[in-house]
């Protein structure tokens, strides 16, 4: 009666997706904050961190767009 298979599938996919998004965003935020503080001492290192952080936020943006793609049926 209850579709355990699809429930477990939904649970696992949601867990992985949420964890991935939060991890990427958190790492990006940490790097961004570190970059802001590192710039005074070691500008090169700060720049590198900033670049990585921006890339990670770009990935987050792509994930948001993927979310929009999933939501809008016309795209399927």
């Amino acid at each position, binding site marked *: 009666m209850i579709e355990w298979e699809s429930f477990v599938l939904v649970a696992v996919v949601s*867990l992985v997706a949420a964890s991935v998004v939060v991890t990427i965003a958190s790492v990006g935020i940490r790097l961004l904050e570190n970059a802001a503080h590192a710039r005074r001492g070691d500008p090169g290192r700060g720049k590198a961190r900033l670049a990585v952080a921006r890339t990670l936020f770009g990935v987050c943006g792509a994930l948001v767009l993927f979310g929009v793609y999933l939501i*809008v049926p016309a795209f399927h």
Partner: protein
Amino acid sequence: MVALVVVLALFFDFTNGFHDTANAMATPIATGALKPRVAVSIAAILNLVGAFLSTEVARTISGGLIREGGGGIQITPTMIFAGLIGAIMWNLATWLLGLPSSSSHALFGGLIGAVIVGAGVGAIDPGVLLSKIVFPAVLAPFMAAGIAFVATKIAYRVTSGHHAHAARQRFRVGQVFTSSLVSLAHGTNDAQKTMGVITLTLIAGGFQAAGTGPEFWVIAVCALAIALGTYVGGWRIIRTVGTGITDVSPAQGFAAEASTTATILASTHLGFALSTTQVASGSVIGAGLGRNRHSVRWRVAGRIGVAWLVTLPCAAIMAAIAELVARLGPWGIAADALAGATVIMLMFRRARKNPVNHTNVTGEVPVAKHTPSMMLPKVPPSIASAKPPKVPTADTPTPHRDQA
């Protein structure tokens, strides 16, 4: 009769919108990621857009819960009318109490109650009731809470360190995106239900050919009704979800919304439908547990849980009574409409005595803060009559809640 059902359906759509604003916008409002007015405007626009985007209008009114159509029973406009009355009453009652209950469950409950009276218990499919409503309702909050718990742990672990507090404020930017996705998903789902109800009523009334999709005006008015409801904002429910369950920090808010978004998208695409309301509330509880398990106010969470359990039966009972009266004929329907309108007016009047709006939605109102009665209608007259002072919470930054 058909016109009456259409009007009621639109009103239900409106209550659906303002009941569910909290799902997406309670946490960004609570953390100050979005100002309350801005948040409900974004939610309203995305609901409006979402309603036009989706083409998957419900083909059956009840989604298979009621054995309707060929071989089953014929759902009459009167039953839909009574069902809608039950659903609206319950939605408004839970709003008055500030409880986030599922609007879909209220709608299904109302229809079930009306159909049982109108066509007998045999018209209900108990298997579908269990697998589509009861089990998901039990599982959804636990699942969402578990996911949000993990997500919050990750967010805190990764950003721990010297500049943790400043870093975690940056999650506010992310909250804007995650909550917007929840709003858009809501618009594509929930407005469709009302469109389905109206379209099937029009078909039943002979105003539209069977098997055709919704007319453009139906789509347009449904979209407008849900957007308007969202914009008006169920501030009471936003306050419960945003600050009543636990004090949400930006990192928690982001983790909770990311979990809600992921769970809703996964559930709609992998075929295990879950209630947005239950997922969103479960996520907030999980996010609270993820930071500090003592920060969750279990009293509030318990009340929400009780509301979920009784939503369907309560809406069903009210609809059943409405259907009983409606079966007396035109006078019965008139009596229903009159009684419904009176109760709705009384509830709005009751709400005005203890207003919750964009000025005090973050719960930093000295009078109501931490009193468990803040979400009860039976507030002592001394508190109810004393207008809460206007605190410009919207413009002041949220107090630091990250240190725990």
